[in-house]
């Protein structure tokens, strides 16, 4: 079992937060001097211990009770190991394929959207994980606009959330089905991005957080990996595609340096596996071939652990925040502007003629 890293201390928005981060990060003590020291310090010191810092603990307890929602979408051609990777990431059989292991699934003629939800629990923290799969993407001969159903789905989730938000009698906790993160699987050709990859990312990087990963990277040697990643990064830059973490949303220098480090190693070259083998006396997740065992969690072999740490252990909350504060807000602003007041596309009988602004 992995040790739990407490979630970052930012409030979980039960009511929609304002886009501007004017409110100071809660939980950080106002004291310029280290907390807990009674009476000492420079300037406006407190004369005793108040206990403001216990808010961290309170938030933690609350979050544990309410639990998280996390929605992840996987996009890529069939056979790139999407389901296996998601299962490996969350160490349980959470993907669409886990129910039956039959590989006789035919390639669907159009892109379908299939979502599967599971509640997984760790250290008392419950997470409702929804994995949205997109079978049929990029598999046809003619793949024009195969990203249209995906784009439609994402916007539909935003629309759902918007409608709930705009209700007069709102629910206390709006069910969040918006896609927080989209893992895009790049085929490990070793040459460069395919046209389809670029088209997809161009169309969707402004709508959802895209994290590109290089799938089945055990087919690339170390040099090939480095070269391929450089090429991919360059191509993304040339085409003006901004993947998560987006440069424009870096809040301060600390964030920027952290994220820069991540951006240097993206896209992550991953290998997924749900089978365990014995290596050097330890049982590890891996793939056994005639020439060796590829260890999934060994950072020298592939970057799976980097991806997992990045996505789950450090930036999970940030992914949700960016989705809520930026992607969703963009959608909302556009919708409200377009209709000059909220006039929902599918009128559902609510009295929403007047704008709530």
């Amino acid at each position, binding site marked *: 079992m992995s040790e739990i890293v407490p979630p970052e201390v930012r409030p979980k928005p039960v009511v929609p937060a304002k886009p501007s981060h004017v409110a100071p990060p809660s939980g950080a003590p106002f004291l310029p001097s280290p907390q807990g020291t009674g009476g000492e310090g420079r300037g406006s010191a407190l004369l005793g211990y108040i206990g403001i810092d216990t808010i961290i603990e309170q938030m933690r307890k609350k979050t544990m009770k309410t639990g998280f929602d996390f929605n992840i979408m996987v996009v890529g051609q069939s056979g790139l190991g999407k389901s296996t990777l998601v299962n490996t990431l969350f160490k349980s059989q959470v993907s669409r394929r886990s129910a039956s292991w039959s590989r006789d699934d035919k390639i669907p003629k159009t892109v379908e959207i299939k979502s599967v939800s599971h509640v997984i629990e760790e250290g008392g923290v419950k997470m409702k994980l929804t994995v949205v799969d997109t079978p049929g993407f990029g598999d046809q001969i003619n793949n024009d606009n195969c990203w249209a159903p995906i784009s439609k789905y994402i916007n539909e989730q935003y629309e759902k959330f918007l409608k709930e938000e705009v209700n007069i009698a709102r629910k206390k906790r709006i069910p969040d089905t918006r896609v927080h993160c989209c893992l895009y699987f790049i085929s490990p050709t070793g*040459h460069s991005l395919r046209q389809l990859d670029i088209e997809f990312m161009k169309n969707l990087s402004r709508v959802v957080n895209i994290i590109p990963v290089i799938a089945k990277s055990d087919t690339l*040697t170390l040099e090939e990996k480095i070269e391929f990643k450089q090429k991919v990064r360059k191509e993304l830059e040339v*085409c003006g595609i901004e993947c998560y973490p987006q440069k424009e949303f870096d809040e301060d220098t600390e964030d920027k340096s952290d994220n820069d480090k991540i951006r240097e190693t993206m896209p992550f070259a991953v290998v997924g596996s749900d089978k365990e083998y014995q290596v050097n006396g330890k049982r590890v997740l891996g793939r056994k071939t005639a020439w060796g065992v590829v260890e999934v969690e060994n950072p020298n072999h592939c970057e799976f652990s980097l991806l997992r740490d990045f996505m789950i252990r450090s930036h999970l909350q940030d992914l949700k925040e960016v989705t809520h504060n930026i992607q969703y807000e963009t959608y909302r602003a556009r919708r409200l502007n377009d209709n000059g007041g909220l006039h929902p596309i599918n009128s559902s009988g609510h009295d929403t003629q007047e704008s709530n602004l």
Partner: protein
Amino acid sequence: MDNMMLQEKLVEKLLCPRTRTTRQKDKQYVGFATLPNQVHRKSVKKGFDFTLMVAGESGLGKSTLVNSLFLTDLYKDRKLLNAEERINQTVEITKHTVDIEEKGVKLKLTIVDTPGFGDAVNNNECWKPITDYIDQQFEQYFRDESGLNRKNILDNRVHCCLYFIPAFGHGLRPVDVEFMKALHEKVNIIPLISKADCLTPNEVKKLKDRVRDEIECFGIKVYQFPECDSDEEEEFKQMDKELKECTPFAVIGSNAVVEARGQRVRGRLYPWGIVEVENQSHCDFVKLRNMLIRSHMHDLKDVTCDVHYENYRAHCIQEMTSKLAQDNRTDSPLPILPLPTPDGETERLIKMKDEELKRMQEMLEKMQQQMHEKDQ
């Protein structure tokens, strides 16, 4: 008694043909058993040529495999396009020719590459430039063959097409099926599973089974190895059987030489191990090379000439003659016999003539018999 025995012996001698050849045993043998050697010497002098086409999406290791197969570097000056430049790229056909010599035998090897295949977002009919190219080569050979000077015909016909199926998928994709269906009657297709180093042995087996099933299910006629003659050695037959069960071959190619088990071999170096290209337990590269070059190169050429080219030729001629019949032209660009288009009137005439002939034959026979009887 003696007289009868003598008579019998005489009869035997006259009737039994064997008596003649036993006399000839004393003479020297004729010597045409050296014919294969003469053919061999002549062909070695002339040299061989072989045209190989590689098709598949970019990034599947086609160039690396070709380099590994023929131990050359055919793609030294290749420049790979980046994604922006590739947006408007169509499927091209490029040719590289290299002369290889080994133990006095010269081989003129032509590799036909198809960059851009399957790379666009919309790949409708992306195999059309390839089928057009193959037809063009057939047409050119057809014209040359029917021309006046047939001494130096250049044979550019494609003898074999290696089709690369990515190991990442779950079997054949729609574009693979359509490509192979468009080409299986024009060229010998050998499907390969490329970049097989990302598969565990179990996965390789499953994928091969699946691809074989799908090929059969879609009715794709890939190149079949010819059956062994019944008088071949047992070892050869065993090898042949293994070869057939291994298709489609799962191959790995490499341009680099690495150190493995104390030897320098072609391979790929990973942090978790070294893949050796020529190690039979790692991949089927050796089998492919043996099949393609060492045992079946000539058969591939034969099948191309005898089956695919003849199909094309028959098809072409039929088209031309039907056109001729339509246009009623008496001069044709090629000296060919027009196929008789069945016509009701002519058929009737033919029948009448046939019957007349039969009657006359019967009359002749009767007369012959009468004469015979008269003689006797």
